């Protein structure tokens, strides 16, 4: 009995030592160390199961959510059909405008606007398993042209950026993660600064470079495009929800309510002309 527990203790010491070695390796490794390879392998093992579970359980979740609403759905269906006609017309107009913007930006050698960029639509297949980090795994990867540092958006606005890529999956860091940040400015006022994530239940915090600027609740916050080429300018981020403290003092707290509903991300778009591709082009010029 005594020897048995003694062996248990030896084994414990061995595995504690191993954990500490891994933590040390993690602190010392740069890009592409042995742990990066281990990460790729672990993601490759888990991703197919995640994808399967998502395919099975997402529709079930939606089914249960909508089962009590069948009656209302018929009326809504009619209303939506009517709306669709007018929206189709608006889309045609918007596309014409977009073509015009692209022609004009080419003509004046400006940066390509983000709405005109090539993109890849990907499905969210998995979450970061921690309650303190906000990231998602998506089902497109290197084979689809995705690279690290590309910007990720959805219909509402800025979602985040790509932080790691395998052949057929990528991981995106959401803007609400405490390590995420984006160059931002207030639309119409040109005040620039940076938004930073504070976790899921909190708004983003906005720090302006020039703290004497007049900002108001409800002001629209968009990307500034000044952060080493990750986020192109003009992507909607959110609107100012609350301004605490004196705006004229450096400790002012500006809270931005993001447009994107980070709890319900199903599909996202990766902008392929951002990240490394955008930097390449800037060097060409």
């Amino acid at each position, binding site marked *: 009995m005594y020897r048995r*527990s003694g*062996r*248990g203790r030896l*084994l*414990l010491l061995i*595995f*504690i030592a*191993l*954990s*500490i*070695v*891994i*933590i040390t*390796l*993690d*602190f010392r490794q740069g890009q592409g160390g042995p*742990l990066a390879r*281990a*990460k790729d392998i*672990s*993601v490759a*093992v*888990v991703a197919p*199961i*995640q994808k399967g*579970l*998502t395919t099975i*359980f*997402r529709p079930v*979740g939606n089914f249960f959510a909508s089962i009590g609403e069948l009656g209302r759905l018929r009326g809504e269906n009619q209303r939506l059909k009517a709306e669709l006609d007018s929206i189709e017309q608006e889309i045609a107009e918007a596309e014409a405008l977009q073509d015009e913007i692209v022609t004009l930006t080419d003509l004046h050698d400006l940066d390509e606007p983000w709405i005109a960029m090539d993109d890849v639509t990907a499905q969210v*297949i*998995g*979450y*970061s*398993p*921690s*309650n*303190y*980090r906000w*990231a998602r*795994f998506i089902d497109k990867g290197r084979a689809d042209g995705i690279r690290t540092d590309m910007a990720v958006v959805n219909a509402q606005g800025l979602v985040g950026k790509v*932080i*790691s890529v395998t052949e057929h999956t990528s*991981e995106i*860091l959401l803007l609400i*993660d*405490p*390590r995420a940040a984006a160059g931002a400015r207030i639309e119409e006022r040109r005040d620039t600064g940076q938004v930073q994530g*504070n*976790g*899921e*239940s*909190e708004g983003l915090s906005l720090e302006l470079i020039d703290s004497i600027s007049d900002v108001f609740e409800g002001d629209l916050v968009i990307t500034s495009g000044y952060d080493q080429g990750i986020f192109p300018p003009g992507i909607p981020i959110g609107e100012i929800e609350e301004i605490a403290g004196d705006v004229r003092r450096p400790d002012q707290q500006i809270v931005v309510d993001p447009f994107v509903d980070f*709890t319900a991300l199903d599909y996202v778009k990766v902008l392929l002309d951002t990240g490394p591709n955008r930097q390449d082009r800037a060097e060409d010029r």
Partner: protein
Amino acid sequence: MVKEPKPSSVLGDLGVPRVSAIAAVIVLAAAIQSTVLSYATILGVIPQVVLVVVMCLAFTDGEKVGLVCGFFAGLLQDLQLPEGSVVGLYALVYTLVGFAVGQLREFTPAESVWTPVFTVAAATAVVEASYATLAIILGQEWVGITFTVKVIGLVVLYNTLLTPLVFPLVRKVADRFRPERVYRW
């Protein structure tokens, strides 16, 4: 000539099928935690079902299996986190909890389903609090302290609720692949 007793492997008397079955359970738990349980949250908090599985394994198989499973399950969870998290920290904490729960088992009535439930509740609180503390000490960017306390409370609640479902399943797998000579009841 005296026949030497066969030295037991690191995982005790485990065969290849048993090790694979346990590994499959851990990988499946990790996949479930990052998909189904990530949309079925309690107030936005994801349960740590991988941790529950580790503790159940420690409960059915003792401290050696507990700590080795804890290490690999923790490492798998570490590797699923985005960059900027301390890789190896879940491995360390889960190793310790696997060992501790395995040792605790000797002092508790084995057949009651309540024992693992209470153990999971208490151990989850300790694990979550130590992980947060160590991550902050090691310099990881962290969210607010009130948020952290809320998360720990809800993870304890959710993990505790999951234990009566997870424990019988884990025990079934653990017993199913147990070598024949071990006493079954």
